[in-house]
């Protein structure tokens, strides 16, 4: 137990140091250019796989493909229109909208996402209540909470929520 706590402490300082290092790292990001490209690619891929994914059974005024095609067209036209205005801006040498993305924030978001995925994977394996306990404690650790009382509150809450769900409400949980 004791050595485990020491490992935790070491980990703590390591995380702090990494955080410190990444703190001011920023990446330039052009949402007005990237955004339309993302939607354009999405729509084109959806178009490309349509023949295998949506079968047309009869020749009628409208088919199963009519609406998806219309919607993808709107996305393509919209994205191209947005891109054109950006290209015009580049040609006119007016400044593009730049957003500075903090690397640390994005890495943290990724860590939260990983924790969520892990939670979802563990749920059917070890059960809802144990995985919820692990997740909530991990989340507090993520927020760098040192107060023991917080951990006690969260463990208690997770337990109570799980028990109410399972036994009082009779909800089926993994």
């Amino acid at each position: 137990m004791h050595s485990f706590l020491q490992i935790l402490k070491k980990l703590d300082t390591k995380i702090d140091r990494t955080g410190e290092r990444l703190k001011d790292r920023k990446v330039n990001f052009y949402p007005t250019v990237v955004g339309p490209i993302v939607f354009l690619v999405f729509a084109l891929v959806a178009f490309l796989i349509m023949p295998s994914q949506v079968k047309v059974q009869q020749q009628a005024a409208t088919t199963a493909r009519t609406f998806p095609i219309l919607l993808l067209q709107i996305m393509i036209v919209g994205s191209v229109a947005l891109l054109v205005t950006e290209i015009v801006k580049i040609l006119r040498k007016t400044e593009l909208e730049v957003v500075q993305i903090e690397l640390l924030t994005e890495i943290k978001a990724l860590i939260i996402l990983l924790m969520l995925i892990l939670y979802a994977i563990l749920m059917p394996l070890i059960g809802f209540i144990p995985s919820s306990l692990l997740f909530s404690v991990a989340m507090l650790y993520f927020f760098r909470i040192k107060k023991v009382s917080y951990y006690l509150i969260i463990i208690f809450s997770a337990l109570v929520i799980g028990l109410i769900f399972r036994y009082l409400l009779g909800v089926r949980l993994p």
Partner: protein
Amino acid sequence: MKKVLLLLLVVLISFGTIFAAGKAEVDVDTWPQEAVTVICPWAVGGVADIVNRKAATYGAELLGKPILATNELGAGGNVALTNFLKNAPNSHNLIFGGEGAFSIAPNVDGSDAIQFKYGDFEPIINLYSAIFVLTSDVSLDIKDLDALKAYAQGKKLKIAVNGIAGSEAFLAKALAKDLGINMELVSYNGANLALDAAAKGETEFAISHQSQAKGSVEGGILNPVVVFDEKGVNNEVYKNVKGVGEYGSSAFFRNRCFILARKGTDQKIIDKVRKAYLTILDKPEMAEFFKSMMIEVDPMDKASIDKHVSTVAAIVKANL
């Protein structure tokens, strides 16, 4: 911090032991060793769900262990039936099934997503059967098939159905083929909306269960034309309505709901469950409910359920 970790550890271990216990070998003779779960793969509040929950109240009395009635929805029941394959034979989980999953789904678009087949299950008992009825907009004054045939001369009829690949749709197609009339199906999102469409005159006809059209027929806004059964019906709401069988058509089947176990389940267990449900179906409370929902007790066995599934499949395949 130390206390927290310790507490977490204790809680996790205690849960671990709870979950590790149980899961012993199933003894066929003393089955059920634990509560039996009966899964209804259709909506909460529907007929099958209510039958399931009412029946479940007799579980402890008849099986010695409680019956837990639950629902698992998705893809018209096909998700639950897919997941059910994870059960081993002799498991304590049972599931409802019907012709929709075994006769229709394997033959229509999307069948490549379905990973189960009828042979993966062991039918135990059919609980009830419901008869479909064709109703018409009252202003057309069509009350039997002969009048319908006369009306259909040189016209394309529009029939409102619940879903384009549901039982109602195939019954409509099969009947139109037998009568040699021209009709087009209009799919609505639910039997109630299909009936409403006919009542408003948006379509001329609708097909639904007897109970679903009850209100509109009683209210005099829809006329019953014919029921999709061998013989006619004669009850408070549907007075002397003939069955399509009486006109020489074979375009009929009833909607059924049967209990299934995983294939390979011991005959002793099947017999035990069947016997329990036969008793349940005899209870006066069930009879009263069945009457109000206009469904019939119909305790078919494996052979007749097999026949039902293949009959419906044949009608579906002939009318794709």
